[in-house]
């Protein structure tokens, strides 16, 4: 795992180093150019100065009269600033135009510094490069050559750059230390947050206090706290579900066991028979509960509805009616004619699940001999599939809670588990439809599946 601190440190150090390096290169180049320009100007000036010094013909005559054609014994000495490293920087030669060395400075070589007539040139003499400026004085018949050794020039430039680089080399480690400390200090809020998080128990889902953190950390903290709240909520729901599920599963088991023990303990045939009857009813109920728990699990496991398929609403309901006939006490389930042939397109399994639970609820809550009526109606851009019963309905104060898992109201059916409406709501939600419950004016409940007309197959839409 990479450390943010090391990463920032490396980035800062490398960029700073590169900046230093390019600055140094730039200074090196510009200094060298500047030094060359200045030194060239000095060469030029020196050459012209020498030239002007020897301009008087008398001086030349006086010198040259005695021994014309021979090299002058006393070379012209050009006054130079005394400097330990750069002394005798300049070398000067005066040649007659016919190629005789008239005079030279101490440091100048005996050979000619440059073959050319006027201007700058570079010559290699004894392995050393000289930069030379020449002035030709045609009236006196002499050529003045002033040159300096490039080695000395380079040394000058190098010394300058070294003067810059040396402090840099000393500063960079210091800079590194400072960067390391600053980065560490800058990351302190992050480290504190990490420390706080690490110190928490795995089960601790309380919000982290947002006290004086930085603007950058604050959003992270906010979303973390939001996440904690969501996880805590989910965990609480899960725990409630488990507690309810435990109750709903263990209670029928306890009932079965108790009735079985009653049957075993009693000598009375009537008591035994009644207990065995209760056991059969209990097994049916537990079976239904298990089926519904599995339904809930499958509805919740599928993130979205499976592919839609067209099916006939009337036929589906008629099949469910046949399926439920076995457990129905004498309740008449009527499916209105226009529902047959009406085709909708959605996940058929989820629709079946929802319709089955609603139909089962209607039958179980109906008094014996009552009628359950399945019908459709159109409402704006929606199709309503209603299942109307003649049971007790749902007390208004219980309405908001009936779709909670395991909620069982005042008028609960003996075989209910409190899961049916919860399954219906979730199943319909997955398919884009909605569950609507309302008490009928004539008594009983109207449970309605409300779905967008778009889900009704176009060819049969006229039927609605």
């Amino acid at each position: 795992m990479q450390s943010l601190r090391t990463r920032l440190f490396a980035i800062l150090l490398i960029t700073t180093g590169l900046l230093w390096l390019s600055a140094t290169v730039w200074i090196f180049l510009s200094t060298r150019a500047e030094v060359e320009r200045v030194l060239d100007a000095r060469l030029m000036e020196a050459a012209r100065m020498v030239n002007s010094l020897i301009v008087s013909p008398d001086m030349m005559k006086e010198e040259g009269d005695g021994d014309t054609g021979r090299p002058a014994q006393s070379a012209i000495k050009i006054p130079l600033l005394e400097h330990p490293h750069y002394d005798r920087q300049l070398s000067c030669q005066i040649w007659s135009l016919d190629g005789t060395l008239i005079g030279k400075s101490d440091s100048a070589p005996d050979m000619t510094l440059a073959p050319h007539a006027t201007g700058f040139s570079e010559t290699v003499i004894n392995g050393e490069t000289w930069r030379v400026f020449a002035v030709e004085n045609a009236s006196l018949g002499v050529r003045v050559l002033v040159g300096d050794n490039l080695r000395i020039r380079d040394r000058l430039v190098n010394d300058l750059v070294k003067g810059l680089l040396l402090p840099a080399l000393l500063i960079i480690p210091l800079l590194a230390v400072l960067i390391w400390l600053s980065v560490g200090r800058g990351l302190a809020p992050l480290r504190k947050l990490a420390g706080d998080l690490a110190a928490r128990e795995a089960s601790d889902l309380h919000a982290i206090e947002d006290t004086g953190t930085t603007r950058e950390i604050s959003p992270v903290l906010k979303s973390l706290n939001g996440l904690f709240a969501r996880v805590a909520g989910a965990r609480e729901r899960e725990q409630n579900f488990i507690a309810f599920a435990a109750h709903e599963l263990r209670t029928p088991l306890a009932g079965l066991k108790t009735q079985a023990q009653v049957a075993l303990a009693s000598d009375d045939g009537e008591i035994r028979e009644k207990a065995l009857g209760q056991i059969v009813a209990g097994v049916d109920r537990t079976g239904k509960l298990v089926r519904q728990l599995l339904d809930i699990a499958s509805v919740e496991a599928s993130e979205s509805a499976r592919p839609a398929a067209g099916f006939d609403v009337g036929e589906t309901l008629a099949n469910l009616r046949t399926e439920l006939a076995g457990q129905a006490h004498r309740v008449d389930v009527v499916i209105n004619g226009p529902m047959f042939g009406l085709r909708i397109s959605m996940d058929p399994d989820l629709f079946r699940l929802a319709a089955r639970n609603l139909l089962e609820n209607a039958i179980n809550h109906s008094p014996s001999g009552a009628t359950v009526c399945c019908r459709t109606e159109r409402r704006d851009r929606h199709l309503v599939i209603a299942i109307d019963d003649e049971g007790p309905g749902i007390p208004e104060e219980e309405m908001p809670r009936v779709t909670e898992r395991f909620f069982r109201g005042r008028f609960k059916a003996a075989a209910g588990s409190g899961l049916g409406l919860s399954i219906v709501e979730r199943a319909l939600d997955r398919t884009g439809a909605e569950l609507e419950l309302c008490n009928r004016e004539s008594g009983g409940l109207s449970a309605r599946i409300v779905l967008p007309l778009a889900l009704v197959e176009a060819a049969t839409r006229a039927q609605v």
Partner: protein
Amino acid sequence: MRVLIVEDDDILRDGLKVGLALAGFTSDAVGTCDAAATALAANGFDAVVLDLMLPDGSGLDILRDLRARQNDVPVLLLTARDTVRDRVAGLDTGADDYLGKPFDLDEVAARLRALARRSSGRASAGLEWSTLKLDPARQSVEQAGKPVQLSRREYSILHTLMSHPGVIFSKAKLEDKLYGWQEEIESNAVEVHIHHLRNKLGPGLIETIRGIGYRLGGAG
């Protein structure tokens, strides 16, 4: 012994009622907090079997109300939530014992007997009065080492009287212990049962305190 069963599951409630009757208890059964509160207000129970999750509230609320009214009837909690935390919450609210579902019917009966015994301040399970011995667990009665056959009602009356020696029970109170709500009470039933008991165990065992009621008499 008269027991109130508070349990919302029809099959379990019925099983407990029938099963406890087989074990010699007289029981009434209700399925909601409301009905339980009404029944407990009557105050004729020796013990309460209480489910925690009821459709109109929690059994713990009933328990809390009961204890707030200084009613110390022994309470046996029945529940599916039997983590340590749930048990502690139940016992701390004032429950006397705790059973997780699914339970054994015999165990429920045994615990109820133990609760009743403790609430009347006795340590041993059996009841004794001179040469008479009553074993609540086996619903058996012995006189001077010989078993005596008693009907269910006769046994209940003897059990009630022997649980509180010296205490006078009115006829109405004995009827309370003998019959659940739905049961028809014959007008002279208690007198008939007492008469049978005197025939089987000797005339001096149960004294009639005229105008007040009955209690265990001298050395039977």
